[in-house]
């Protein structure tokens, strides 16, 4: 009896000892799931205690929009304690409810349900094939990095978009410098200096998922030999600096001629009718004198250098002259002026001295008759005031023939000039005044302008009359040859 009891007790004890290491499995825990390319995914779990007995694990899932419970299609591809869902079993944007059941001889244990959506678990593989290439340039080297996208991602159809990031560190420091590359699979680093070892890593991201792991480290050493080129470039820069300095010195030494060449002198302006030299040489009195027309003088003398107005030469009918021959002398008026439109201040014969000299002649009677070529006949009246400002005009009443002009008797203005305008089409001729009959009749000599010559009889002669149709130089002479030259129009004031 006792033996049986003891044997039973022993059995019980051994049974008890044995059974304490065996139990139902512990609860497994689902760790995580991951989809590397948004087309398949894998889930991993951690088993609990196995209870001393061989336990098996099964993963079951339910899916939104899908009735029923299903088991993991592939336990092997992804390793131990994992479940791989291939494309046929993967749906995006639906919820999966996963549970893992551990079972052994003594019981089962089920993990907590794990809910996931493939959209949320996307984490790509690291980019591969990272290559570095050093480009040596004169100033500083640069580092070109190239890599390949992870092989399982499909970027061609637009299903996913990849973004890259790389980080660089120099030598053995722990400071990584990060750069974003966008969607390019290459990147250039310019802030590298020679004489160091650079380490580069790349990682990528799909859509709004998680970053991949950093790629394998790649490093490259940039050599130092570039520093030898510096002395040469320094030499070149010094030489060019010397050249520049020399060129600058030469320029400074010859600055006047350079200035002449660069900035040629600009001709100054000339006021029509004013002789600037005269103004400069004399004071304001001279100017005033010049402008004032003295009463004994025909007011045509002077500084009007570029007068273009011509005057008519009046009659030359012999008949008229004969009766008034004694007056011929008086009809002459010396005048001197330039028709030339160019400003020849040097050639100006009309100066004050001429003027003064001519004063004596002025025994002219009331009618001084300066004449011009084209259209005007100026008569100076015997006016008391020498004020040039009052110019008198007499109007032409009638042109009898081409050499007789009748003037109106009444005065147009109070000063001493008579102007009249010649008809058009009349060739510019010089005509010598033969005689002034009265104060309304002038007789011209029929003569060609070509016969004009400057005589030297009086020393009031100033210049030669060049018969240029447009630019005659006309000079005046005080002679009694009866010749009247063209005279510039007096200032119409």
């Amino acid at each position, binding site marked *: 009896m006792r033996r049986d009891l003891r044997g039973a007790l022993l059995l019980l004890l051994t049974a008890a000892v044995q059974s304490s290491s065996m139990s139902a499995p512990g609860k497994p825990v689902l760790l995580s799931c991951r989809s590397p390319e*948004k*087309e398949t995914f894998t889930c991993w779990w951690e088993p609990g205690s196995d209870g001393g007995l061989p336990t098996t694990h099964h993963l079951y899932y339910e899916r*939104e929009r899908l009735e029923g419970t299903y088991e993991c299609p592939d336990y092997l591809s992804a390793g131990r304690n994992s479940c791989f869902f291939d*494309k046929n079993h*993967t*749906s*995006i*944007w*639906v*919820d999966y*409810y996963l549970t893992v059941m551990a079972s052994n001889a003594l019981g089962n244990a089920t993990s*907590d*349900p*794990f*809910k996931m*959506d493939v*959209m949320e678990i996307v984490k790509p593989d690291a980019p591969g094939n990272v290559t570095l290439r050093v480009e040596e340039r004169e100033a500083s080297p640069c580092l070109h990095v190239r890599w390949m996208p992870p092989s399982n991602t*499909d*970027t*061609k*159809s*637009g*299903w996913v*978009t990849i973004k890259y990031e790389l980080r660089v560190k120099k030598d053995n420091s722990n400071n990584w410098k990060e750069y974003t590359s966008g969607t390019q699979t290459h990147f250039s680093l310019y802030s590298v200096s020679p004489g160091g070892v650079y380490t580069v890593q790349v990682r990528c991201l799909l*859509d*709004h998922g998680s970053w991949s792991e950093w790629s394998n480290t790649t490093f490259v050493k940039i050599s130092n030999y570039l520093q030898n080129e510096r002395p040469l470039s320094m030499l070149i820069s010094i030489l060019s600096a010397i050249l520049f300095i020399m060129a600058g010195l030469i320029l400074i030494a010859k600055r006047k001629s350079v200035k002449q060449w660069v900035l040629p002198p600009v001709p100054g302006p000339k006021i029509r009718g004013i002789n600037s030299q005269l103004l400069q040489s004399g004071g304001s009195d001279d100017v005033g004198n010049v402008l004032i027309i003295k009463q004994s003088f025909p007011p045509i003398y002077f500084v009007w250098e570029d007068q273009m107005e011509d005057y008519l030469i009046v009659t030359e009918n012999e008949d008229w002259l004969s009766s008034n021959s004694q007056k011929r002398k008086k009809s002459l008026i010396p005048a001197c002026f330039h028709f030339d439109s160019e400003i020849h201040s040097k050639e100006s014969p009309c100066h004050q001295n001429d003027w003064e000299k001519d004063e004596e002649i002025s025994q002219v009677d009331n009618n001084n008759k300066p004449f011009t070529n084209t259209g005007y006949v100026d008569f100076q009246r015997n006016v008391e005031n020498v004020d040039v400002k009052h110019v008198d005009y007499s109007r032409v009443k009638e042109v009898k023939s081409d050499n007789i002009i009748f003037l109106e008797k009444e005065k147009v203005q109070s000063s001493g000039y008579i102007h009249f305008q010649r008809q058009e089409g009349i060739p510019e001729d010089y005509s010598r005044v033969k005689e002034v009959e009265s104060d309304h009749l002038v007789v011209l000599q029929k003569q060609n302008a070509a016969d004009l010559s400057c005589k030297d009889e009086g020393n009031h002669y100033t210049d030669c009359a060049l018969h240029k149709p447009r630019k005659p130089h006309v000079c005046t002479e005080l002679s009694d040859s009866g010749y009247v030259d063209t005279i510039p129009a007096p200032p119409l004031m």
Partner: protein
Amino acid sequence: MEKVLFAVLTLVYLELSMRVVSAPICSYGQAGCHVPSLADLFERVIQQSSRMHSVSSDLHSDFEQYFFPRKNLIGKRKCHTYDILTPEDKENAQRLGREQLTEVIVRLLQAWGEPLSELYQSMSQDQNQDFNLYSSNKALEISDILHELKDGVTIITEKMKLLGVLSNTVGYNSPESLVPSSAFYTQGDLDSMDHHDLLYCFRRDSNKAKNYLRILKCTTLPEPDC
């Protein structure tokens, strides 16, 4: 003085010439504006959808952290866009064809116009919490982007029809007929749970829209690297 005048004239000229260069962008080819290409339109629309998804995703995760610190909340929810049939993987999406894909996109976008504005209003009313101020701003932003995105997709479909890439059968069905009146419309005020659900559903649908738009672009435009 002349220098000032010259500077003013130069500035005026530059401004006018720049105005001439940067003509307004228009989609229907009105006179005087610069019509963007289909590639540009797609680019813009994809950017917008990406932004929309990222903001809603951030808001959802902030929401979860603030209100439901417990992870992995299991709750079988049903989004109000449940009935819109959408392709659920790459092959199905590519098999769908341009017309159907476009229709799906349009339906998705149209289904969310009202719920988002409701979400914004509900969030902005609940002002006693700091989080709601932050979240209501984000909700407003999402709502605005969605509105622009809808317009953009409309423009793209018109242009594609014009180019002959899309058949004219793609119509615009009224959203009411497609989207069933979901539960929360009738419940009156939305609470935090409803906010959370809405955000969860919208995060998903915006991701769908983005992906579909990208596939549409890559099948329409013959680019080697999409």
